[in-house]
């Protein structure tokens, strides 16, 4: 488990570091998606809602397009798809309590699952492992972001 500038960022996940979104292959092409501890920090730490666009369930969402929105009193923004895929399901737990995504962003607080349509082709755009986290660290330093 990696901690960078006070932000918990596990090494085994794949990150879209520009968007502070993680992806985790679950087997059979299914990718679990959530927001990082960095996104939770940037949104103010207390969320009003996380909403997965219901219309997109069962549809293909291209990489970078919005699969959900995060709302707090000081922030509103998209959760862009880290890779292209068919949006399979939303995590019902975060619909009833969005702050699970803050308290446990990589566990109970995942946001949605997708069936990736081009994982091998697109995963290279994400960062992972010690080398990837070094890049993420450089970005956080450049942007002056810290979770402390």
């Amino acid at each position, binding site marked *: 488990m990696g901690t960078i500038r006070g932000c918990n960022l596990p090494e085994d996940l794949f990150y879209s570091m520009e968007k502070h979104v993680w992806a985790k292959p679950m087997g059979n092409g299914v990718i679990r998606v959530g927001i990082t501890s960095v996104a939770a920090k940037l949104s103010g730490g207390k969320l009003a809602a996380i909403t997965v666009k219901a219309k997109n369930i069962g549809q293909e969402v291209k990489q970078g397009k*919005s699969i959900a*929105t995060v709302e707090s009193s*000081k922030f*509103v923004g*998209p959760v862009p798809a880290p890779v292209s895929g068919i949006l399979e399901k939303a995590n019902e737990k975060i619909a009833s309590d969005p702050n699970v995504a803050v308290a446990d962003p990589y566990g109970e607080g995942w946001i949605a699952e997708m069936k990736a349509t081009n994982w091998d082709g697109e995963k290279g755009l994400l960062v992972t492992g010690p080398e990837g986290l070094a890049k993420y660290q450089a970005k956080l330093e450049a942007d002056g972001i810290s979770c402390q």
Partner: protein
Amino acid sequence: MEDKILIIMTSGPDTPRRCATPFFFATLAAAMDYDVTMFFTIDGTLLLKKGVAETVYPKAGGKPVGDFLKDALEAGVKFTACTASTELHDLQPSDLLEGVKMVGGAAMWQMSEEAKTTLTF
């Protein structure tokens, strides 16, 4: 082609509590990948005058409307202003924020017809 949404903003600095949510909803819609346009008319146009939105506070001690407006612009929301409303308030196009497109009332009807949803505040 993304679905279009039109938000008509008629509220202005006289009713601060009505001025943040329209921008918040616009930003949210943009975050959901809708193609969002705001049309400012009546008192809404006053919020587009340079420096005004920064002085309007929906809640004492909270964020000014200017912050909500900036979030909407950064999210890609398009701002259009009704030409007649600038005359109502003796505003010149140069008094308004950069990037605001001046349009006539007929443009509002066309945008409304093209939009999947129209909200009015």
